[in-house]
């Protein structure tokens, strides 16, 4: 047992520390050196999700029903898997529109509707008060346990409180904290860095405290965690905790998972830390796994602590206080104090953030609209607004305190939390539909949320009133007017579900049906339509046309004065000047065009919410209404324009590709043209040489009839040789032209390459003997069959042989003709021991009229077309022709021909 003074001092010291951290955070923010600009701090601040409900209540629930406290933490993990689909979308849209709360988000999406904002705010307050009450109760209960614990279980929480008004004190301190650090600035969309720093710190404290108690339970009280489980296993009532009940338990599990998924997005405090207090969108990335990791860490020891408590504590101990009573019973008072501070952290962070979030909603979405309607807004509204927010914080905390006093012991911690979750879960369908379904409309959301909320109140809230005796019990046992179908716990005769799942099912059914049904049958207004486009199509660059969706006239001085009333004259002037400079205009000449009016409205929205901002701006601006038709036209135009530009980009890319292709084709054409010119001039040259010699010798013969017989014979022989050469040249050219034009007749048939080679060698024999060049023939007979035109193949071999003999030196010249079998073809080679072919000429020699060597000094024989024709013929047979270095100098011309398929061979 702790002396009350020491305990109070410790608690007070801890609160002072929190105040110090918060004010340090605020001061650092003021000097521009933020201490919360980190993804780790962001993830820790998200852990405000884990309240005293987690800290004390999870153990209680685990002790009562096993693992079914876990869905509350598995659900958020699942939502964080959707971080880049759902959460980052909420973040981005909210930042763009300076959203200040979840009520503001929904209001802005559904046509800046004041009604939506008000409805959501009311529900958020009603749903959150029990939850705040729960925190206050947890703190006071834990304090009492520490103060009154007498060394045995079961007495602490029953004894009357020493400090009569613990809850009131706790409430007052937390409210003071929230007022001090949560209402410094008027712009609610700005961050409260001090608060976030404190929350992050508290998240560390509660995690450390809980893990410490868990390790203590496992390692000090018992002989390791295996020991706890082993002992629990032999007690049937404990072993049963790890059983999974029938269908009812399964449905409850699924329902709780869904509830938690909705809550992590919709709880006002979660929205506050996740969206409003977010420094940098990129922090979300790391938080996507850091936050689930935090949840795992803080839940890991829940079951061991619960089992340890059940194993060692006498019956009748309040399982919700096991975190404290376990260390106390073992005499570890210091650990108990740490656990108490952990629980205090959990409760405090929740109350602080929740009240700040709720105060923003109450002020912006409930009180300001009312003042606007009454026309009771002072010229300088800043002190008024801050006053309203401070009062709202006080009011919320007071409501929580009142709720504790009234409902007291009737509900377990966890039940209260779940009922709160179910209330805010009513916003979930609206958010999801609002962000992903353009046609979801204002009326649908109003109907859906209202219906869902009413069902929630009927099935979940009223029973708690009945339990305190505000309502007659008969109403719940027999149903109103005795109609059993309307019994709140088994609505429409739906039995077999636990109360929360039952209420969740009916409220969600009415909620979603309302939203979808009404949205399908009711048209959107122009403003709704444009806001819907801004939210749903944000990814696709919508928002650029925002300015086009407004038309009207305004005075710049009116706008500045209006915004100045909320944000201060000087600051407003500065902002407008900055805007003018951004647009490259003279600040004095800034026009009150659509963009400027939007800026004014956005600035105001940050202070008083989008719905009120719209009303305020409308009061100084003469707006021309734009019809739904026109909004649709503009939006369609915009999306069409985006589509067109996308297509244009595609087409211009295609065009570039085509241009490049054309350029290449053109270059190729030019090259061919040049080749053709070369060809013509070469041909003329080649024809002229023999013609010239024929003509000159003929003239000699004609002019000199007295020429000697021998001389005459000699000249005539030259004329014949030159004529033959001319004929050969013309024949070759005709062949080439025919092959190129595809007019040559091919007699394709199975041919033995060896046989043709032998014939060719025989035909060339005389030429070789004349030149005194040795010809070696190495042929293979087996399977050298290919499909070819026999005469053409003969022509190729003769061509290669005459080529070889031409370049072989006399007397020592050696030409080898080889036919070999390869795996899939026949290889024919003609090797010589001449000068060889330089590597850079190896392709060129297959071009027309391309002859190796200097044509000026040595007169090559042949037309210069032989190799070109050979290559074309072989290609026609499906083969290849190339030239290689010979092993001992010289060149090897190779021809590869595909082997005739076996089937053709057989036939």
């Amino acid at each position, binding site marked *: 047992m702790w002396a009350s003074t020491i305990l109070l001092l410790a608690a007070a010291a801890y609160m002072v520390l929190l105040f110090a951290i918060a004010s340090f955070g605020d001061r650092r923010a003021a000097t521009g050196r933020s201490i919360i600009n980190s993804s780790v701090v962001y993830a820790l601040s998200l852990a405000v999700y884990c309240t005293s409900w987690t800290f004390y209540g999870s153990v209680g629930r685990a002790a009562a029903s096993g693992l079914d406290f876990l*869905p509350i933490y598995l659900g958020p993990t699942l939502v964080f898997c959707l971080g880049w689909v759902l959460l980052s979308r909420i973040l981005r849209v909210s930042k763009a529109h300076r959203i200040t709360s979840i009520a503001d988000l929904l209001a802005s999406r559904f046509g800046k509707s004041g009604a939506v904002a008000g409805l959501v705010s009311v529900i958020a307050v009603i749903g959150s008060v029990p939850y705040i009450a729960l925190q206050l109760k947890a703190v006071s209960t834990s304090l009492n346990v520490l103060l009154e614990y007498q060394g045995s279980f079961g007495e602490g929480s029953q004894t009357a409180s020493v400090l009569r008004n613990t809850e009131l004190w706790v409430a007052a301190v937390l409210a003071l904290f929230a007022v001090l650090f949560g209402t410094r600035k008027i712009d609610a969309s700005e961050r409260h860095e001090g608060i976030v720093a404190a929350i992050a710190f508290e998240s560390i404290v509660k995690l450390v405290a809980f893990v410490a108690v868990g390790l203590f339970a496992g390692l000090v009280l018992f002989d390791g965690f*295996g020991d706890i489980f082993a002992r629990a296993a032999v007690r049937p009532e404990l072993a049963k905790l*790890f059983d*999974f009940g029938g269908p009812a338990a*399964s449905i409850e599990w699924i329902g709780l998972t869904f509830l938690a998924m909705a809550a992590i997005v919709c709880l006002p405090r979660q929205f506050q830390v996740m969206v409003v207090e977010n420094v940098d969108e990129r922090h979300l990335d*790391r938080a996507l*796994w850091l936050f*689930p990791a935090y949840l795992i860490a803080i839940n*890991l020891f829940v079951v061991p602590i619960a089992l340890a408590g059940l194993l060692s504590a006498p019956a009748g101990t309040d399982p919700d206080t096991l975190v404290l009573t376990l260390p106390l019973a073992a005499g570890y008072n210091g650990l108990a104090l740490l656990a108490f501070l952990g629980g205090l952290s959990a409760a405090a962070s929740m109350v602080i953030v929740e009240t700040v979030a709720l105060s923003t909603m109450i002020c912006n979405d409930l009180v300001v609209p009312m003042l606007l309607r009454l026309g009771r807004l002072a010229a300088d509204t800043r002190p008024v607004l801050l006053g309203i927010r401070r009062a709202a914080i006080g009011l919320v905390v007071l409501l929580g305190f009142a709720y504790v006093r009234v409902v007291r012991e009737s509900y377990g911690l966890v039940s209260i939390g779940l009922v709160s979750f179910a209330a805010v879960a009513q916003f979930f369908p609206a958010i999801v539909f609002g962000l992903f379904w353009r046609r979801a409309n204002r009326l649908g959301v109003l109907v859906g949320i209202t219906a869902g909320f009413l069902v929630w109140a009927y099935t979940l809230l009223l029973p708690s009133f009945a339990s305190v005796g505000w309502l007659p019990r008969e109403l719940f046992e027999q149903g109103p007017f005795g109609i059993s179908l309307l019994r709140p716990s088994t609505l429409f005769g739906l039995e077999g579900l636990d109360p929360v799942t039952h209420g969740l099912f009916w409220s969600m059914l009415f909620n979603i049906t309302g939203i979808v049904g009404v949205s399908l049958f009711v048209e959107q207004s122009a403003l709704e339509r444009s806001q819907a486009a801004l939210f749903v199509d944000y990814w696709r660059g919508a928002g650029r046309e925002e300015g086009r969706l407004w038309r009207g006239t305004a005075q710049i001085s009116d706008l500045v004065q209006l915004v100045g009333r909320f944000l201060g004259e000087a600051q407003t002037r500065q902002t407008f000047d900055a805007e003018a400079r951004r647009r490259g205009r003279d600040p004095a000449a800034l026009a009150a065009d659509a963009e400027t009016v939007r800026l004014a409205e956005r600035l105001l929205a940050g202070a008083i919410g989008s719905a009120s901002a719209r009303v305020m701006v409308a009061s100084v601006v003469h707006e021309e209404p734009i019809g739904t038709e026109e909004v649709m036209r503009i939006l369609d135009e915009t999306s069409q324009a985006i589509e067109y530009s996308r297509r244009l980009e595609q087409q211009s890319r295609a065009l570039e590709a085509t241009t490049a292709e054309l350029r290449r084709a053109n270059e190729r054409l030019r090259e061919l043209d040049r080749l053709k010119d070369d060809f013509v001039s070469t041909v003329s040259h080649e024809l002229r040489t023999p013609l010239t010699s024929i003509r000159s010798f003929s003239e000699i013969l004609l002019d000199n009839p007295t020429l000697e017989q021998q001389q005459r014979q000699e000249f005539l022989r030259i004329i014949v040789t030159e004529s033959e050469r001319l004929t050969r040249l013309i024949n070759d050219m005709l062949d080439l032209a025919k092959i190129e034009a595809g007019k040559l007749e091919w007699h394709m048939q199975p041919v033995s390459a060896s046989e043709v080679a032998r014939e060719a060698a025989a035909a060339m024999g005389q030429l070789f003997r004349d030149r005194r060049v040795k010809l070696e023939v190495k042929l293979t007979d087996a399977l050298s069959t290919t499909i070819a035109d026999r005469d053409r193949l003969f022509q190729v071999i003769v061509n290669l042989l005459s080529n070889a003999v031409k370049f072989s030196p006399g007397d020592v010249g050696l030409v080898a003709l080889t036919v070999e079998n390869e795996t899939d073809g026949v290889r024919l080679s003609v090797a010589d021991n001449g000068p060889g072919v330089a590597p850079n000429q190896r392709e060129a020699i297959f071009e027309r009229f391309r002859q190796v060597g200097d044509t000026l000094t040595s007169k090559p024989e042949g037309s210069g077309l032989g190799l070109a024709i050979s290559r074309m013929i072989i290609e026609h047979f499906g083969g290849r022709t190339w030239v290689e270095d010979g092993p001992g100098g010289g060149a090897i011309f190779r021809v590869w021909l595909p082997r005739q398929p076996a089937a053709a061979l057989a036939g």
Partner: protein
Amino acid sequence: MPQEARRRDRLVGLFALGVVLFNPPMLWIFARSTLFGWPLLFVYLFCAWAALTAIIALTVERRRTPPPLEVE
């Protein structure tokens, strides 16, 4: 940004996986049995949870690495 989109889709896939892993009827498989004296349902849930979180971490943190070269 196809790389971004692919990783976003991966996370959505993890969501679907999580929905299956964390809910009945998957959980029925692990009820009532034990593993080395530890309740299997407890061990399973925390292992699956940790694994899922680890995969989120891997997916999210592999941020600024260049995309792998296309190898034919």
